[in-house]
């Protein structure tokens, strides 16, 4: 593991197995989505999280049920790691009414009130102000929750990134900004879109405490997240984690990836967060033969069930389409 090992708290074997299982679960789910997309079961945009699983899994460990999550369109990993049931996520990908957003949002707009999952946002940076507002509500109503928002490094070019960080720090709001810096904003490499590519320095210009984390190391991500969230809960105001990571798949299903070299992809694949954890747990004797296979089998079953659940889901009748445009008459 990376040089930050010493800073990591001792993790129980059972906890590590959990982290591994979560990452495998997300990885296989995303692979299944890619397959279903080719079968035209999933339509529209589909942004896969393969390669970045460590960030969602690691940071979710530091968030409590009372916290609010605001994600982006590359949100399947966050939703699953946060606890949104896989069958309802898959049904949403199919557009069925059993989906977590009644089939109306699809891949980019997964909503789940039970887990405080305030949706993916298809407008880059669009979610940041929401997280600020959710944190404002927590603070004004003296509640202990914090608001965590996930965004790619592309978002830092949006005014909303700067406005949100400034506002959050100005009003000392409990916001965790998690930047998943995968080096490419769709087709633009970071250096070609940011005068100052070092994201976490931007945050410091708003006096927002910020750290860089190895986004390919789930243990490192969790450690940083636990530390930073503790500070936020103690009233320290907002904080930013810049997780350096890499997506092994294209930006979305319709991307010939002309903007990056195959060699670079291969090089990053050597740092696959699942392989690294798996290898380390074997080395340290935590992981026995067959444990991973058991995880894989259990994940495969869950995915098969979620696909079956989505297949036999129902289409929303046209007659109900206008429902929820406004609150029902008389609702206060």
């Amino acid at each position, binding site marked *: 593991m990376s040089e930050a090992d010493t800073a990591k708290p001792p993790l129980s074997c059972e906890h590590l197995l959990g982290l591994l299982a979560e990452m495998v679960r997300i990885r296989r789910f995303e692979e299944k989505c890619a397959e279903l997309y080719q079968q035209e079961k999933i339509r529209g945009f589909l942004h896969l999280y393969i390669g970045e699983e460590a960030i969602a899994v690691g940071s979710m460990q530091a968030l409590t049920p009372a916290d609010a999550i605001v994600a982006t369109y590359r949100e399947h990993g966050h939703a699953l790691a946060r606890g949104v049931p896989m069958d309802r996520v898959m049904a949403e990908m199919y557009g069925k009414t059993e989906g977590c*957003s009644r089939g109306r949002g699809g891949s980019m707009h997964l909503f789940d009130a039970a887990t405080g999952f305030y949706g993916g*946002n298809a407008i880059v940076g669009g979610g*940041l102000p929401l997280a600020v507002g*959710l944190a404002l*509500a927590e603070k*004004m109503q003296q509640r202990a929750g914090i608001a965590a928002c996930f965004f790619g490094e592309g978002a830092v070019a949006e005014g909303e990134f700067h406005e949100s960080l400034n506002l959050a720090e100005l009003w000392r709001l409990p916001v965790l900004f998690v930047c998943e810096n995968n080096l490419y904003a769709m087709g633009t490499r970071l250096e070609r879109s940011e005068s100052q590519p070092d994201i976490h320095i931007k945050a410091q210009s708003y006096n927002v405490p910020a750290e860089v984390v190895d986004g390919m190391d789930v243990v490192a991500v969790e450690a940083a997240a636990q530390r930073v969230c503790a500070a936020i809960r103690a009233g320290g105001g907002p904080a930013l984690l810049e997780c350096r990571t890499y997506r092994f798949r294209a930006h979305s299903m319709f991307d010939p990836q002309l903007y990056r070299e195959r060699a670079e992809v291969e090089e990053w694949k050597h740092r696959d967060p699942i392989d690294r954890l798996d290898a380390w747990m074997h080395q340290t004797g935590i992981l026995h033969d067959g444990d991973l296979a058991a995880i894989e089998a259990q994940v495969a079953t869950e995915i098969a069930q979620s696909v079956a659940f989505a297949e036999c889901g129902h289409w929303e009748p046209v007659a109900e389409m206008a429902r929820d*445009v406004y609150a029902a008459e008389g609702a206060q």
Partner: protein
Amino acid sequence: MTDGTREITYREAIRDAIREALLTDPRVFLMGEDVGRYGGCYAVTKGLLDEFGPDRIRDTPLSESAFVGAGIGAALGGMRPIVEIMTVNFSLLALDQIVNNAATIRHMSGGQFEVPLVIRMATGAGRQLAAQHSHSLEGWYAHIPGLKLVTPATLEDARFMLAAALADPNPVLIFEHVMLYNRSGVLSADAEPVDIRRAIVRRPGKHVTLVTYGGTLFKTLDAAETLAKEGVEAEVVDLRVLRPLDGETLLASVRKTRRAVIVDEGWRSGSLSAEISARIMEAAFWDLDAPVGRVCSAEVPIPYPHHLEEAALPQPAAIVAAAKAALGA
């Protein structure tokens, strides 16, 4: 608060409405550029900071998208924010938040989350602020399912529409025409709360229906006065709510007079007046004796010089001419 006898302005009526909201509901707070220390760009919120403090009267940096988005987030989180966007012109920076979040979250989340938010913004031209500060974009927002739009023109509506908007669980946009702030009159002591659903006939008539809202209501009433002197009794319908439109009141009037002229400060192409004209054609075609007329702003960026701005904007003379054209004179 006001008593029957005192003369008050449109701006004071709105301030009283905000004060009343802050006093009666702890969840209510006001956020916007220069609303606190400066007292509001149009002096609507003067004095509120001293009375309610910086926690509930929040000056914001010039980050419309952020603070409007934050307003949406706070509403999601259980507050009842009143967000003031200085003018509709700046709302363009927050259009994404209003259209893609405020208007959409309830539906897109399958009904799980609601956005009980009120956004107030000044609108319209007439102060020689030139093109970027003279927009009338109510028609844009009236296009968006999920939003409600109200345009208070009278003192009663200015005083009481806010309460109705705050009570409504949907996001409500209140457009206050810049030329109305200085109008004054007597607000009757027993004036009671108003709804934000129906249009109202402000002046009954039988020869032609003049349909308008907000800033152009009084220009239209002036035109009706002129027409009356020439024996033409024009009926003036104040829409009050631009979405959802109260088709019933509108069509009842048009079916009676068989002639309609719509007065809308927006540009005619793809405007609210185009929508209203289409609805009249669809629902009252067989009642019409003349094509529906429209009086809108000239399709130019509003020019800075006074005489050009006057020429660009809808004026009573043009309304009278349009009414006569509808009568075949």
